[in-house]
């Protein structure tokens, strides 16, 4: 019980506390007027809000589309297309995130919405691939046993295939989140805002304090999310 509390609340709070401490210290002790002007609570909150907006919207969309798409492609009627998609997705994942954002900028222009859309599409890939691969990887004999016992296809999907594929789907989600959090810091280059804003501002005015603030919050967000999903992963899978 105490351990659970520590794992789920204690450690996350410590991480958030570190970030908060750095921000509070920096805002209250600006070394010069430039930092004082550019590093305010208001600004920090704004970029955090933007950042979370980028993550939440793109990840929610990507999860829905990725999982649904993966399930659909794993159905026997679309399975062949699924295998082709797998190859395309693998190549797509090799394309660096900066290149993806840049290309979307050339097509759609600047802005938050463009950044969200690019992140959304980019994050679909690992989720789609892992959902497909996870379901595809369920041993044929297990499906056949289920069919042989008179289970209907939909029941087999929900009671057998998805639960068995679940750890792999979650691993895909985890990959997507890590990639997404990383790419979200690049959104600033195409006018998408977020924590990258602070870093880029800091770099352009040569103020390490602003850079470090942006970097620390971004890093802690990423580490925290990865940590939480990792812990959830451990809890969920009791078998094997």
């Amino acid at each position: 019980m105490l351990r659970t509390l520590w794992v789920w609340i204690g450690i996350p709070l410590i991480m958030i506390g570190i970030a908060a401490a750095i921000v509070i210290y920096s805002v209250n002790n600006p070394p010069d007027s430039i930092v004082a002007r550019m590093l305010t609570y208001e600004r920090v909150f704004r970029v955090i809000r933007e950042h979370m907006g980028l993550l939440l919207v793109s990840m929610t969309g990507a999860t829905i589309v990725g999982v649904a798409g993966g399930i659909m492609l794993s159905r026997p009627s679309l399975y062949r297309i699924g295998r082709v998609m797998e190859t395309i997705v693998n190549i797509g994942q090799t394309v660096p995130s900066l290149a993806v954002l840049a290309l979307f900028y050339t097509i759609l222009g600047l802005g938050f919405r463009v950044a969200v859309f690019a992140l959304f599409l980019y994050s679909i890939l690992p989720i789609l691939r892992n959902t497909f691969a996870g379901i595809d990887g369920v041993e044929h004999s297990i499906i056949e046993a289920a069919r042989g016992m008179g289970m209907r296809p939909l029941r087999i999907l929900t009671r057998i295939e998805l639960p068995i594929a679940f750890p792999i789907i979650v691993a895909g989600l985890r990959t997507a989140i890590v990639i997404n959090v990383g790419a979200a810091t690049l959104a600033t280059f195409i006018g998408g805002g977020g924590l990258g804003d602070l870093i880029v501002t800091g770099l352009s005015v040569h103020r390490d304090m602003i850079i470090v603030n942006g970097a620390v919050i971004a890093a802690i967000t990423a580490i925290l999310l990865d940590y939480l999903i990792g812990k959830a992963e451990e809890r969920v899978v009791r078998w094997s």
Partner: protein
Amino acid sequence: MIKLEGLTKVFKGHNIPAVKDLNLEVNEGDVCVLVGPSGCGKTTTMKMINRLYEPTGGKIYIRGEDALQMDPIKLRLDIGYVIQEIGLFPHMTIYENIATVPNEKQWPKDQVKEKVDNVMSLVGLDPEIFKNRYPSALSGGQRQRVGVARAMVSDPPIMLMDEPFGAVDPITRARLQNEFLRIQERVDKTIVFVTHDIDEAIKMSDTIAVMREGELVQHATPSDLLSAPADEFVSNLVGRNRSIKRLHLIRVSEILEEVDRAPALKEDTKEEEVKKRLDESDIRTVIVVDRDNKLKGVIGVNDLKRKTGEVAGDYFQEVSDTVTDDATLNDALSVMLEIGEGYVAVVNEDEKYQGTITLGDLLNVVREDS
């Protein structure tokens, strides 16, 4: 009960049919064992019966009804299926695995629980120990038994069992086979059973269907198969020592009636009597039982010489193994070889003494038949 007419399956992209024009009828309450070399179409035949595979041609009748016209889901819910690869669900506990079909049929919870505990004990898995384990924590043989329990939990009138005891050790296997036969005597399910073990086939079956390259070579009772194999293929399959294989066919209880051996001695029998009976005995040994006719032990000539008391109850030797009356003669032979004696005592389920059979008795059986 199950009738296959001209059943044929050609897999997509294959030229040769996996099953070709198969005609087979299994009567209600019978066990039909399919045997034949690997790849001869046994599994394919089974999967057509529960319509996991759609036949390319031919008919399947179940209780006179055309199975190909029935709703496959309904059909399968009433056919217990033990898949060759076992196919346990790795993310479910043993309990959940076995409860699958009852849950699909939405039985009440406590009835499911009772039934699951029941079948688990039946296949020799202690529910308290195994219920909450996951399949990954079981040995191959244990998993296979879960597979059997899962198929029979809802008491389906028909069972398809694809090598259900393949991964079980010989001792447990013999136990499961006997258990299976005992249950079968009571419930009379119609069963199609695949095995590679010809001894198992002879022991378990009412009829044996020998297949080869997708075709039925011979369908006969085990005894007919042994005495009149259709061709060389079949006689090679059943092996050289066919007379010994007959021992699988006969239960101990059947010959006990014929062999007329003197009754066992009570514990309070005096030396005189023991000596007399020892002299008369063809195996130079007498059996000692208690007042309730429970087996106590045996007395041989040497035991009498070195006797340590007045009555038989004081100096008998315990026996290391016995057979039950529903065991086959082959089981009896194994026990004799194991304990290194020319006889074995037979007891019933309540350990009451039923009689003794000897190597000589077995020899007579083999001789009579051939």
